[in-house]
């Protein structure tokens, strides 16, 4: 049978709605008159029904009793393979098992946040970046106090050196998110919200991260060098060798810092065949 969800008010209910309407109108003229009218109606009309409409508009103020649901008793399933022989449980052992159960120490509670505005990105694998954030700093609190209207929170995922980005709508209270990305690329992630006027406000920017390569490199050039400690031992005579490709190279390492990078550069000198 199809159940109707339409709300059908009873006659008394309609009557009482009218009574209340009249009372409200009367109260505009004279509150005392309205009160008299209402008490008269209460005496002579059939009593008002309180009907559960099946829709909970507001949270109940009184705590409802918690129903304890007991799971249906499991029927013992006959094991397909015989279990290892369980030695008979001694009284002492039973006591021990019961006592050993409840206490699990998970350590002291840590602060919920450290009062910062920050977002940090960490690489999980070539296709996934994890970000966590906190917006408890002075700056973001000020911005949030200023913008009272609706906010559409999102993460903006920027590629290094490109203007392009894409947005990922988020729930800002989640405080962390896993983002799906492309391998072998650099990313910076901005956290912010769009106001109802379409303006995007960045509250925090992440550290740059580089996702790993998920396959082999496209570069084939060969550079050769010496293990740094063996380098000095090997070079005084000016070592030359034939690379497996058949060309002569003289190679060496020299230490030169590339600005902003800890990686040292290598140089190769081609000597011809």
């Amino acid at each position: 049978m199809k159940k109707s969800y339409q709300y059908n008010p009873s006659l008394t209910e309609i009557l009482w709605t009218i009574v209340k309407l009249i009372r409200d109108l009367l109260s505009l003229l004279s509150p005392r008159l309205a009160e008299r009218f209402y008490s008269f109606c209460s005496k002579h009309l059939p009593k008002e029904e309180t009907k559960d409409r099946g829709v909970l508009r507001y949270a109940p103020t009184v705590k409802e009793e918690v129903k304890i649901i007991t799971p249906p008793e499991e029927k013992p399933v006959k094991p397909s393979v015989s279990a290892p022989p369980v030695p008979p449980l001694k009284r002492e052992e039973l006591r021990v098992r019961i006592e050993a159960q409840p206490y699990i120490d998970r350590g002291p509670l840590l602060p919920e946040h450290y009062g910062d505005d920050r977002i940090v990105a960490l690489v999980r694998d070539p296709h996934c970046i994890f970000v966590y954030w906190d917006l408890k700093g002075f700056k973001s609190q000020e911005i949030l106090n200023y913008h009272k209207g609706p906010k559409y929170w999102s993460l903006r995922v920027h590629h290094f050196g490109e203007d392009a980005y894409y947005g990922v709508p988020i729930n800002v209270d989640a405080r962390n998110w896993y983002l799906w990305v492309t391998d072998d690329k650099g990313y910076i992630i901005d956290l912010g919200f769009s106001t109802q006027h379409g303006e995007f406000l960045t509250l925090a920017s992440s550290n740059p991260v580089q996702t790993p390569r998920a396959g082999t490199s496209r570069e084939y050039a060969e550079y050769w060098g010496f293990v740094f400690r063996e380098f000095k031992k090997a070079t005084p005579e000016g070592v030359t060798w034939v690379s497996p490709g058949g060309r002569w190279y003289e190679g060496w390492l020299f230490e030169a810092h590339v600005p902003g990078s800890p990686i040292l550069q290598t140089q190769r000198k081609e000597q011809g065949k």
Partner: protein
Amino acid sequence: MPIGYLAIILHTHLPFVKHPEHEEFLEEDWLFEAVTETYIPLIDVYQGLLDDNIDFRITMSLTPPLCEMLVDPLLQDRCARYINKRVELMEREVHHTRNTPFHNTALMYQQRLSKVRYIYEDVYKRNILDAFRKFQSAGKLEIITSAATHGFLPLMLTEDAIHAQVQAGCNNYKKHFGKLPKGFWLPECGYRPGIEAELKKAGVEFFILDTHGILHGSPRPKYGIFAPILCPNGVAVFGRDVESSKQVWSAKDGYPGDWNYREFYRDLGYDADYDYIRPYLHADGVRRNVGIKYYKITGNVPLSDKQPYDPNAAREKAAEHAGNFMFNRQAQARYLSEHLGIKSIIISPYDAELYGHWWFEGPQFLNYLIRKIACDQQELKLITPSEYISENPKAQIVTPSQSTWGDKGYNEVWLNGSNDWIYRHLHKAEERMIELANSYYNAEGDTKRALNLAARELLLAQSSDWAFIMTAGTMAPYAERRTREHISRFITLYEQIKKNQIDLTWLQDIEYKDSIFQEIDFRVYAKLQKL
């Protein structure tokens, strides 16, 4: 003349677990089990080889927390107690199993444990680090180090924190072995480009990565994983060999799954009568593994259908497998020498605890393998990575790719829903530690004590083991507790130092509990030191 080399690398690590506040502590057993089942059997194997004048090379990465635990007097006492209890149990068991099919096995355990006790107590006076030092100076063993507390470097926020982990690790190596390490085991083989710069500062010559860390490097490595590559700054990198790894690691297809080998999950701690086994359990009396196992794997059968273990059959199997392993490596070396035209190196890294603790016959396997390689053939030779570098200092320059040896090859094991909450706190602690180290660079007295302790707490919290255990699930509450405890101690110290109100009684208590790295200098976190 050999045509190829084999480097066996045993990664030997345990997190720092010491609870002096408790008379006995469950997680401390990790160390005692490893000492009894892995480290001392390995020492026994090395000693036998040395006595028989057999040339061998093994590389072991003894991590700083493990070294610190091995020399800790309290843990040494407790380890001796653990071994004594096992010896006592076996003496009872030998009588108990008379006229049963388990008697031979019981005798084997009894002899073995008595020997373990003899080596631990009488030969090395409870300090088995001496043994490893001895084999190192004999030129047979190369000991390399790792990050201070085995912190997972790719997920650290600042370079300074990576620097501190590397530097503190190398300093600790110097304390225990009297020189600087040539090699470095990146915790979990976790690498991201840039880490090699910190290694070079510490004077490290080489480190080891998982296969794809090399193969996905740029430019493409010409010899793949069969020759080391150089990072652009001149630090050498070796890559893990897939084939030899699978043969030993895999529980299904690998050697340890052979049906004659000992079954790990059928333990006397669960099988014996409760009253009988009660004195050998922990104070809480819950049944747990006691390390005595009488059954063999038998086949794909339920635990109840396992058959009695036969030590002799298992030993023969280990010899057979050692022969097979060598044969395969020879074939590999021959193939590589034909096709690549170089003396290739096959890198086989394993967790040391695999040998002995998980795979009971592992040390015997190693023993046979080393003897066979030394005596039965000429093509293959054991080598350590640093010897290989001295012989072949020239290598292709390749920037390795970010990788780990964990499940799926990247960081997911240490960064997922079960443990991602820790990084928020760890990163903040990193930044605060750097701030403290820079602003209190010249601190003296109690402030210095507190700063050193703060550095220790941060290092301990960073240990990759906690994140790993949270992912694995078993013992997760302990890992959570350790992470929270160290971070919360760090926060307290930070606040006390900032307010200049150091609670000395509390400080002393924590110093006593977290007694790792007595030599630590908090200035490893300072920027000034690096200039």
